[in-house]
């Protein structure tokens, strides 16, 4: 990719203050997104994917959440130092967002048209008339049958897949330069998922929008992303191009994730290997690597020292002391 840098997240840390202590939901996360690029953000539930997205939108619920450090440079400007008013102009205008639950992300008492119109009137200064016209076009683009009638429908009158189409239309209505899709298809049927993803890909390609796909579904990432960030316990553990991360994983967590996905070339009698154990308590992380208790490659050093991201290949970074053994697939030396 030689495109311009669109989003540059530098050392972002977002913490939540709870009764159990401070939870470092996002801890020192850095990544770069270029214009028109698609970035996959993968990991288990509770690993900080969504909080990263909310931090970029400056929508972290506060209290208890707080962005404690870092910079989010979007088109040369730090979103974190902007005033509320300035951020509001970015939201919806330059950065669109699609949420996980299509059932609750539309206001139940307002018509589809009323809600679609809002960002258009707010950001592009359209009149009601113009905005309604544009809304019909948008609904047509996302494959909504009978768009004119649908403008007067209420959210409960359309299906989950159609609601997600409306959400996409809303998020892309102002032709943003960045779209964040937070588990946008996780709540939908598998068949609908594919349709929705195709629509997102098609439209963002046409507008030239960069996309951050947040998902726990590695298949989705494999199909759509250019680069992949693997997150675990609030940190990026491995990052690189889709090919390098999928074909040549350097972090045991990535290996574990990939092994737990069924593939067609898997032997008929082979078993999927889930990652053993569960995510550690984020409020009480071990001093060493957060993944150590679940890792097949762990050595003594992993218990004591937390590995930083190091270059493990061409534009490919991993945070593992034993990445060479991981690359050569030599597990077993346990502590």
């Amino acid at each position, binding site marked *: 990719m030689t495109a311009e840098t669109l989003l540059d997240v530098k050392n972002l840390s977002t913490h939540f203050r709870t009764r159990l202590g401070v939870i470092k939901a996002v801890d020192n996360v850095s990544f770069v997104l270029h214009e028109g690029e698609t970035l996959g953000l993968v990991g288990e539930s509770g690993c900080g994917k969504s909080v990263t997205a909310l931090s970029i939108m400056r929508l972290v619920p506060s209290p208890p959440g707080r962005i404690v450090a870092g910079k989010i440079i979007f088109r040369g400007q730090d979103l974190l130092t902007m005033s509320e008013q300035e951020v509001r102009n970015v939201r919806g205008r330059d950065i669109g967002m699609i949420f996980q639950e299509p059932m609750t*992300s539309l206001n*139940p*008492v307002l018509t589809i048209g009323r809600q679609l119109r809002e960002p258009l009137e707010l950001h592009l200064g359209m009149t009601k008339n113009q905005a309604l016209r544009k809304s019909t076009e948008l609904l047509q*683009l996302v494959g909504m049958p009978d768009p004119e009638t649908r403008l007067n429908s209420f959210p409960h009158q359309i299906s989950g897949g159609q609601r997600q189409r409306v959400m996409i239309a809303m998020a892309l209505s102002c032709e943003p330069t960045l779209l964040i899709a937070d588990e946008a298809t996780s709540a939908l049927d598998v068949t609908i998922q594919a349709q929705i993803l195709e629509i997102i890909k098609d439209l963002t390609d*046409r507008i030239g929008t960069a996309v951050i796909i947040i998902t726990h579904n590695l298949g989705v990432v494999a199909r759509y992303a250019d680069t992949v960030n693997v997150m675990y316990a609030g940190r990026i553990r491995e990052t690189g191009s889709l090919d390098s991360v999928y074909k040549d994983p350097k972090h045991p967590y990535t290996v574990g994730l990939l092994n737990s996905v069924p593939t067609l070339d898997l032997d008929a009698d082979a078993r999927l290997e889930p990652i053993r154990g569960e995510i550690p308590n984020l409020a009480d992380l071990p001093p060493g690597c957060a993944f150590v208790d679940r890792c097949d490659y762990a050595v003594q050093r992993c218990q004591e020292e937390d590995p930083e991201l190091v270059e493990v290949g061409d534009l490919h970074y991993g945070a593992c002391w034993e990445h060479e053994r991981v690359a050569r697939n030599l597990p077993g030396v346990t502590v």
Partner: protein
Amino acid sequence: MISGTEGTIAAVDIYEDPPLGVRLRKLVATGWSTMLSNPNLLFGLTIIAFMVVISILTILPTATLVARYDPTELALIDRVNAPSAEHWFGTDTLGRDVYSRTVHGTKTSLYVGGGVAIIVTVIGVTLGVVVGYNRVADNIVMRFMDGMMSFPTLILALALVAALGSSLTNVIMIIAIVDTPVMTRVVRAVVLSLRERTYVDAARASGASTKRILFFHIMPNTLAPVIIQASIFFGGAILTEAALGFLGVGTPEFIPSWGNIISSGRAFIRTAFWIAFFPGIFLALTVFAANLVGDGLRDVLDPRLRGEE
């Protein structure tokens, strides 16, 4: 760039708002058909409309048509007459025609009920939405409201009447003051749950300001409980006015209201039941109708309960 349907817009522009006359006619038509489909609402509205018509007639020079007698005219010879062709609802202890007084009292009671319902809704919803969203305002306003709610309603109203004097306007203001904390609390509770919904996040993500989210996205969702609550306050205010009248501190005696008529008949309920009975019937009927209308309106106005498709 996104585009692709240029030129497909039909000759009749569906996005253009039709002229006002057409819109009004459509509104009336849909209103009428929804009313017919909801018998409770129809029944409630009929009674309220009947009461409103009576009130209007008693304000205009047509008063003698519906009321026959001057409601304040004393006729000491005709004291405590039982209902008859001459005095349909009988006469009270001062010889005043109970029928005329009841009919004239209608406007007072509707005025009180309507006034209180409107004041409480406007103030209660605004405050409730704001405190439901803002923690600092919440602490300040709700502690004050809690303080007010810790007084028994009627005692507080009594104290306020004693302090401010009893005029019709004062009665309305006082009942509104007493009821507002309840409305605020109801709205606040709804807002507290609504603000966590994803569509509020989605609205923020599309750049809506807090003010816009509060009054455009959240407030319409409070409609159902607010309407119910307002209809309860409408009926409740008429009852409270009656109770204040009953205690002798309500609407002044020279303005007939159902409350003070019932109050003036309370001592004679065993010997002259008609003095309290007939205005009591009017009162009960109106309160009942108000509750029916509230229920019906909620069903009609909430798109989720409308049962379309």
